[in-house]
């Protein structure tokens, strides 16, 4: 009787040991951890309205960038560009001033004192330029790239809601100041063809009548 009892205890212990080593528990909470708690709206607002103005002086003047690319493109990319992914395309955060020379429903064109024209998007705000150009948000801070990409969409949405409406008041001849993100190919950097996503757009002066 005693022997049989011991036998059952042994079988139960062996079974428990096998089950313990066959199953690996991990809470979904632990798996999803940090990204779940991320308040995407606040993060995007903080980035666009606090961090970007704080670093504005560090962003490259667009005319200086043009000269830098003309003189030594690879050095210009190494010094001023950022990108989340490893590839040919890189993003620059630029600042500039100019006169509005043309405007349609999708873009405004600003011309600076050196007669260079730059195209600012005022309708189709998409892509990752606004997120990546400053190099202030890095993918390694996120549990997964979906959250990282969702943040890009939140930033673009804020730009559409809070930044782009300023362009509605602009008229040809107005002088403007802007901070914006643009992307260039390292193999063929054509600044004049780039579209600038505005992160800050401000009318400095009405056109002179």
């Amino acid at each position: 009787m005693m022997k049989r009892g011991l036998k059952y205890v042994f079988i139960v212990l062996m079974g428990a040991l096998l089950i313990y080593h066959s199953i690996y528990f991990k809470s979904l909470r632990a798996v999803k951890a940090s990204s779940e708690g991320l308040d995407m709206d606040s993060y995007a607002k903080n980035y666009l309205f606090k961090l970007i103005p704080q670093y504005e002086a560090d962003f490259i003047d667009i005319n200086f960038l043009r000269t830098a690319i003309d003189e030594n493109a690879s050095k210009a990319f190494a010094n001023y560009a950022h990108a989340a992914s490893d590839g040919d395309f890189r993003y620059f955060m630029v600042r500039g001033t100019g006169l509005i020379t043309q405007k349609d429903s999708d873009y405004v064109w600003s011309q600076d004192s050196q007669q260079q024209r730059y195209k600012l998007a005022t309708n189709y705000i998409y892509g990752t330029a606004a997120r990546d150009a400053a190099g202030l948000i890095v993918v390694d801070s996120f549990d997964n790239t979906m959250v990282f990409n969702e943040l890009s969409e939140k930033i673009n949405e804020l730009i559409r809601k809070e930044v782009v409406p300023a362009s509605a008041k602009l008229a040809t001849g107005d002088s403007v100041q802007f901070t914006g993100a643009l992307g260039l190919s390292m193999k063929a950097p054509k600044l004049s063809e780039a579209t600038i996503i505005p992160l800050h757009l401000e009318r400095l002066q009405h056109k002179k009548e």
Partner: protein
Amino acid sequence: MNYLNVWAMLLLLCLGCSNRNKENEGKQVAIVVSTLNNPWFVFLAESAAEKAQALGYTAKIFDSQNNTALETDHFENAIAAGFDAILFNPTDADGSVVNATKATDANIPVFCMDREINSRTAATSQILSDSYAACVQLGELFANDLERHGDYAEILGIVSDNNTWNRSKGFHSVVDNFPDLKMVARQSADFDRNKAMEVMESILQGHPDIKGVFCGNDAMAMGAYQATVAAGKQDQIKIYGFDGAEDAVNAVKEGQIQATAMQFPKLIAEKAAQLADAYFKGERTFRKKLPIAVDVVTQKNIDQYIAYGKKN
């Protein structure tokens, strides 16, 4: 006596050197890949194995057959068999975290290839295609090709895979800006060609007038193309894929599908093997996520590309 000492020292030196070489030669690398039923993943796995072998390691490929339970078995076997690193193409962004964690807890480095797991700590590093950014470009192309109006459909990949949603969201971040572009159907075909053909057949029955279909990978794009040919609608419907697989590259060349997005599986696989090599040599600081850019391939630039990569 002096000669004997010199010979003894030389012998010890040689033994030391040969032991150091053997230390690397003896390393084994497991390549656990989500499926070998898709040529893209076969190429990824074989490229990883070739690079690991070229670096002096033994490599063995394990096929998870898109089954997380089978993937768990592979990890357990790899850990028990004493593999020194795992180059990993996961089956499930959440479900595969536990497998990578097991290996990491056993001090075996894990380097994810192409597909992501939802953790920063479970894997040593994750080398991923930047699907989102590429699909922003595909979305722009799609909107322009369809002249910003008309009905279209979307065929999704495996819904538990992050690539599926990064691709879909990148695409929609653009096309949703155009109110006259209307998505009338959206179904998953699990990245599978045959399923995509069936899904497309059913979409065409309900929505015979669609002008375009965006597919989450090339296998599904080719399945969708077969269905449009069977329905005689190949001239009406523009098809877009993603991967840069051989048949899709040929189909872009022939004008059968409009575009694909070229991922670089060889680059991803080789990078993973190189990181494992660096780990064996003592490196411990790695970027947790390393996105690799993806190129959009159309008839305009098809001459620059071959299957799975760029021409040299």
